[in-house]
């Protein structure tokens, strides 16, 4: 069964008396265990789509089916219960946590709220989550402010997998990290997907990151879906000017002498 099916999704914002289309008639599907990369420049609407999906923003029109249910029709306790199935990891690692929290409390909250494991097993589950994302279990007592950016992003991933979701929305989840750490976080995400069959909707402006982990890539521009296909097709044979611009913008290591006045854009 298709895990996620977005149909005709549209959203407008009122801005300075004008009505600005943030999303126009978006159609997307996602299969279990699949990664869909959502590429686009700033203002393309990709984060708006992610926020509507997370039910942080209402849609104007269209439908979303998640695990066979009408996701936009859910509310109250029904929505809260099913939120366990769809989690999110943000770009701003520190802003995504209560700064006074300890690592243990960050991971214990979703376990408690969603009743993932019985109370007596929660401590053990926190330790298992830390271990799974490659952090020592002694980190449980640290403050979220005391650890590095890469470690915090590991905690954000541990928090996301704590509720055993079938979909995680990754909104520029590695963009703020140093390159040497970025690769390790991407590897962790891929391992978790293999092991647990989690699907990812990976939002990024960086096609090199999306190429590394996505089965398919969809390209957005000015609120519209301009192109979608397998990652390889999209990179090797882009059809839209937007996709071509995104591809040209990925920095390459120039091992020859500097190219002079014009870049190969």
């Amino acid at each position, binding site marked *: 069964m298709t895990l996620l099916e977005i149909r005709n999704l549209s959203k407008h914002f009122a801005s300075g008396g004008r009505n600005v289309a943030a999303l126009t008639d978006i159609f997307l599907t996602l299969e279990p265990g699949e990664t869909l990369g959502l590429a686009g420049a700033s203002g393309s609407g990709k984060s708006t789509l992610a926020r509507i999906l997370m039910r942080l923003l209402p849609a104007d029109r269209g439908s979303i089916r998640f695990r066979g249910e009408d996701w936009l029709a859910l509310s109250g306790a029904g929505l809260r219960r099913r939120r366990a199935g769809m989690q999110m990891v943000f770009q701003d690692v520190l802003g995504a946590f209560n700064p006074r929290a300890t690592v243990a409390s960050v991971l214990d909250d979703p376990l408690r709220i969603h009743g993932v494991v019985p109370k007596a097993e929660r401590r053990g589950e926190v330790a298992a989550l830390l271990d799974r994302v490659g952090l020592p279990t002694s980190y449980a007592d640290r403050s979220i402010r005391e650890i590095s950016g890469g470690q915090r992003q590991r905690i954000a991933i541990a928090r996301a997998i704590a509720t055993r979701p079938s979909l995680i929305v990754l909104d520029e989840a590695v963009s703020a990290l140093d390159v040497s750490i970025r690769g390790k976080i991407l590897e962790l995400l891929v391992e978790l997907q293999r092991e647990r069959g989690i699907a990812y909707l990976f939002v990024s402006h960086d096609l*090199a990151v999306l190429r590394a982990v996505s089965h398919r890539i969809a390209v957005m521009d000015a609120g519209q879906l301009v192109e979608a296909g*397998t990652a390889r097709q999209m990179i090797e044979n882009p059809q839209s000017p937007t996709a071509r611009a995104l591809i040209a913008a990925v*920095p390459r290591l120039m091992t020859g002498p500097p190219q002079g006045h014009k870049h190969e854009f």
Partner: protein
Amino acid sequence: MSELCDIRGVSVLYRGQPIPALKEIEFSIAAGERLAIIGESGSGKSTLARVLAGLLPPGTKVSGEICWPGGRPLPGRDLGFVFQDPSSSLNPVLTVGEQVAEGARRHLGLSWKQAEARAREMLEKVRMPQPEKTLKAFPHQLSGGQRQRVAIAAALAAKPGILIADEATSALDMVVQADIVSLLDDLVRDARMTLIFVTHDIALASGFADRVAIFRDGRLVETGSTTAVLASPGETYTKTLLASHRDLTTRPLIEDAVG
């Protein structure tokens, strides 16, 4: 090329910090070169940019010396600085025209009217769409990429010989980043300026820098011509940085979908 500045054993310790942000840095910068200062978080790359520009906060301890054979550059007049976040470097209550004109008026001795003409010229140079209209706009009315173009125009309005760009493109999306990098490259080339481009992205730097200097944990790991360092890095850390680079030719971490 003549020497622009010689950095001799410079260490920087911020107030209240146990560990220096820069440790015994030794190297020199040639006039007119395009130098990329490369490093990850905590490498000291921004501290180096700030110590060169004289922008360290009060209470910072600096030891060693920086010699400028042609005289110490005056920030704003001889040295322009572009920060990562144009929303905080631009004054929110001044129009774009006023902030770009300010440097020209102060350092080139222009009247307000002449400075305004200079600001219009600068906005055209940074390829700002609708320069005339932008003169009267406030920073919040512009996109992130446009704000960074304004910040570059303001930094270059007084015709400085040196431009320091500190992660000037890392808050922008990649398409805008590519535009801004090519803009900086063109501007600096045309005016024969010295460019000090601070970045975490070695690949981005490799596209236009003559020389790279790799920093880690407050120390200079290695420096050399871009071609030489990329072709045969001398240090393990540089090799690691190069190996961590990912572009569209890097093998994906997953098996490709069939079809």
